């Protein structure tokens, strides 16, 4: 019922706004703003000198670049940095206030402090839970069948481990050695998250998750060897709906030999769970597979490009672009007792991470060797959260399966969604991973015309632009202080101040669309202070209906243009 009333209210609002808009719109001409020279890129995005000390990572990266005669990119400036780090670490855009405060902060260690602050934030936990739930295929139904309650308990468990920053070797150990009910011992859901329950199916997800390797590239013999470690793993249903017990059932043979993926052997007595031997082998600090996979995956997540790329397709004919760098990260992880946050911190504080996205070379190897930050489109969840935050709107979720968890509180952000089966039209359209395979490539960032239609011209976007609290506030401010309003738009949407050129373009647009009559009226209003104040108050009180005057329309159009700009849609 609630949703229904809300819809009616939105519709009524839309109609009201449209009417006002139509009246004002006649005044809009279609003349293009005068073309102006491109604003200086360096001024907008770059620092002339590094503010960050060089690190071990940088030595390794820049040494490799030197070898190939590739010039690295310029240092990114604070504005680029704050937006980048917020999006990469918390899946959330910084507010205009946060940007302003950061830009004003004179401290030389402010980037490092912000990194620490964000790594400890709730949003970090939410966002990285989302990423791990992609890898671990957390989805109620089809073709992965964890079922709703299994999903909720598993996601909560994963979130808790990320919040506690559980050592990564312990994380793997907990998942691989889990026994019990999928409701009560949430970790067992790891074994239920493949497309089947056979030992080969389990071998596939174990190799992919913890070794970054795809068993379909392995010989059948190797797959069978890995599968045999899971051949005594059994599943049984209980009286409770969709409950499943995962347990070890000892083999009938007294003694059995097992072969690890590196060819070494072990012989186990009956009754011994071979998963223990496998897990001990896997998380051993000498085992390259384990640390290589996680270090590379995290590097990929932060840099947008794996040292081995794709990061979940590690095999001999797909070598690391910078082996020394990967080896260094692996050693660091072991030295830090598998503390993943320490690894994040080291990467994020490097100059390598803090380079501009704008390459200074067109060398084809520049991306693979990390000569610049890799441009990437915002994740579907991050983008819709940003749009809903801006528009003060909520997402309509649905699920193909009848489950109660689709009724999600309105202020819930999409990055906190537990279940891959719960979705929205936006999420589907913008390439959210289906969680069918756990492959990183499931997340799709290729633009298409349907996404473009949505952002340029959907009713949802028009409503957001018209009813955004920010736009309402700035539309009023724009009458008296238009330049300030435009700066605020830039700070909130692009996390920076506009350049002089951009300000000029925006102001020219506003002037062109502001009829002389309106200016005169405003001047007249100024003289009648009291009447104007009363009118303003009335407008403020009309919470849902912003003033549909030409001034507001100009501000809406500028906001619309910024949201549709590549700078908004991409992390850079």
């Amino acid at each position, binding site marked *: 019922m609630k949703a229904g009333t809300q819809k009616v209210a939105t519709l009524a609002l839309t109609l009201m706004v449209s009417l006002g808009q139509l009246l004002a719109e006649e005044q809009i001409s279609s003349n293009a703003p005068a073309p102006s020279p491109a604003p200086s890129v360096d001024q907008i995005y770059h620092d002339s000198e590094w503010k960050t000390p060089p690190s071990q990572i940088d030595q390794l990266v820049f040494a490799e670049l030197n070898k190939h005669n590739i010039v690295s990119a310029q240092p990114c400036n604070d504005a680029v940095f704050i937006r980048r780090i917020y999006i990469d670490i918390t899946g959330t855009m910084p507010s205009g206030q946060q940007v302003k405060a950061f830009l004003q902060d004179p401290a030389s260690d402010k980037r490092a402090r912000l990194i620490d602050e964000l790594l400890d934030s709730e949003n970090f936990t939410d966002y990285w839970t989302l990423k791990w739930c992609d890898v671990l295929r957390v989805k109620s139904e*089809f073709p992965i069948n964890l079922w709703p309650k299994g999903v909720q308990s598993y996601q909560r468990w994963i979130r808790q481990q990320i919040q506690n920053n559980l050592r990564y070797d312990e994380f793997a150990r907990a998942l691989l050695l889990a026994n019990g009910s999928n409701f009560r011992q949430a970790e067992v859901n790891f074994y239920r998250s493949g497309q089947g329950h056979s030992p080969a199916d389990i071998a596939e997800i174990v190799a992919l998750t913890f070794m970054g390797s795809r068993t379909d590239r392995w010989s059948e013999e190797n797959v069978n060897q890995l599968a045999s470690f899971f051949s005594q793993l059994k599943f049984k249903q209980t009286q409770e709906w969709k409950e499943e017990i995962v347990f070890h059932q000892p083999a009938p043979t007294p003694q059995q030999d097992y072969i690890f993926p590196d060819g070494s052997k072990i012989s186990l007595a009956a009754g011994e769970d071979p998963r223990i031997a496998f897990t001990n082998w896997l998380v051993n600090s000498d085992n390259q597979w384990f640390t290589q996979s996680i270090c590379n995956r995290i590097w990929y997540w932060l840099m947008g490009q794996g040292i081995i790329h794709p990061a979940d397709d590690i095999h001999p004919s797909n070598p690391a672009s910078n082996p020394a760098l990967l080896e260094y990260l692996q050693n660091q992880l072991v030295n830090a007792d598998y503390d993943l946050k320490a690894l994040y911190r080291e990467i994020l504080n490097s100059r390598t991470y803090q380079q501009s996205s704008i390459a200074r070379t067109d060398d084809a190897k520049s991306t693979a060797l990390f000569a610049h930050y890799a*441009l990437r489109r915002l994740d579907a969840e991050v983008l819709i959260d940003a749009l809903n935050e801006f528009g003060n709107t909520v997402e309509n979720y649905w699920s193909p399966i009848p489950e109660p968890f689709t009724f999600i509180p309105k202020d819930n952000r999409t990055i906190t969604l537990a279940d891959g089966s719960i979705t929205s039209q936006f999420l589907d359209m913008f390439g959210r991973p289906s969680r069918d395979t756990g492959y990183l490539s499931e997340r799709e960032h290729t633009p298409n015309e349907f996404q473009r239609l949505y952002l340029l011209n959907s009713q949802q976007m028009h409503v957001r632009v018209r009813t955004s609290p920010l736009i309402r506030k700035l539309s009023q401010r724009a009458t008296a202080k238009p330049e300030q309003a435009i700066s605020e738009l830039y700070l909130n949407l692009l996390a920076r101040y506009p350049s002089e050129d951009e300000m000029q373009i925006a102001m020219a647009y506003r002037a062109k669309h502001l009829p002389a009559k309106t200016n005169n009226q405003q001047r007249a209003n100024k003289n009648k202070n009291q009447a104007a104040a009363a009118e303003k108050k009335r407008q403020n009180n009309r919470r849902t209906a912003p003033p549909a005057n030409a001034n507001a329309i100009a501000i809406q159009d500028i906001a619309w243009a910024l949201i549709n700009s590549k700078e908004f849609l991409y992390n850079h």
Partner: protein
Amino acid sequence: MGLPFAQSVLGANQTTHPTAKAKAVIEIWMWGGPSHLDTFDPKPQAGADYTGPFNEVINTVADGMQLNSKLPLMAKQADKFSIIRSMTHGINGHETASYLMQTGRKPGDGQVYPCIGSVVSKFKGYDAGYKGLLPPYIVLTQPHGRFSEEGFLGPRYKPFSTGGDPSKDPFAVQGIIAQGITDARQQSRRDLLHSLDTLANAHPNSQAFKKLDEAEEDAYSMILGDAREVFNLADEPDAMRDAYGRNTFGQSCLMARRLVENGVRYVSINARGWDTHKMHFNSMNQKMPQMDQGLAMLFEDLAQRGLLDSTIVWCSGEFGRTPKVKWEEPWNGGRGHHGAVFSSMIGGGGFTGGHVVGASNATGMEVAERPVYPEDFIGSIYHNLGINPHSHLDNGRGEKVQLTIDSQGEGLLKELM
């Protein structure tokens, strides 16, 4: 009644190099699974335990085809479509059954196959030089959601879901028809966007940005170009709109005809609400008149415009419903899921009308003759589109997989070709 082109057209070579008869497909996807007994496979002789109040049949213009009497208008168009009464896959879960009926595959081999619409989009869409005003694969109006349409083919082959409601004026097609924004303002905003696209200027060689620009061009050609006129149902005479029925389903059928007329390759009408576990007959009494009117008019209209020969129209749910009515609480006259046997309908695009393929047994519980499996049904659609059902697709992992599996039964619907 069109004379069948007979077996001669379907020589041995035809199976490997089929000749295209159809250019486009309209799919009516009856989400939830409609009862076969109450639609295309009535069983009045099975008694009231099976028929419920829907115990009458009606003769059609096709010899030997009777329908449930709730489909009087369809009965007059029965020369234009045929019925398969022996569809089977044996699955009673919505997701698996939908997946089977849409992909012809059983789930669980570690990959997600594309549905028919995405495959047609792949073989007949942009990759095949399609240059239509509109996307080649369109869903009216909400995305299906129960299956991943594009599967391993990737998002390029995803359908465009219109959103909105074609029975409302205007039909607010997502992203194409926006109220309250004039063309002049669209143009002025677009110019502003280009002059403020600062990061784009800094990345003149970015492939991703180039793709985004192309997508923008395509989007604006729909927003400001002729494409939006296709969605303007007010162009149609009132009498035509009335004939289809002034409801979402009826106007969706009319919209589907306009889309096909304008070159769209695959239109799917997502007709929900057939999962009638409870109070089945009440729902059917509400839904069937709309279905009857919209579908019958679609056949009549396509035929009159000379489009039926090149347009396949098919209609099915993911399964049928239990033949025996559940009168007890809490069902109060309901029907459950039934994948052992059910009925699908197909016509146009080279499929002969007026025929009944296969049969269920006396109570509609199981197949009595000529079982037709999803791969046979889907394969036949591919065949008539000139797509070899045994050709191969790249599954995105560097492997080639066959479009449909080898038939578990008697193969393609040759009796209708």
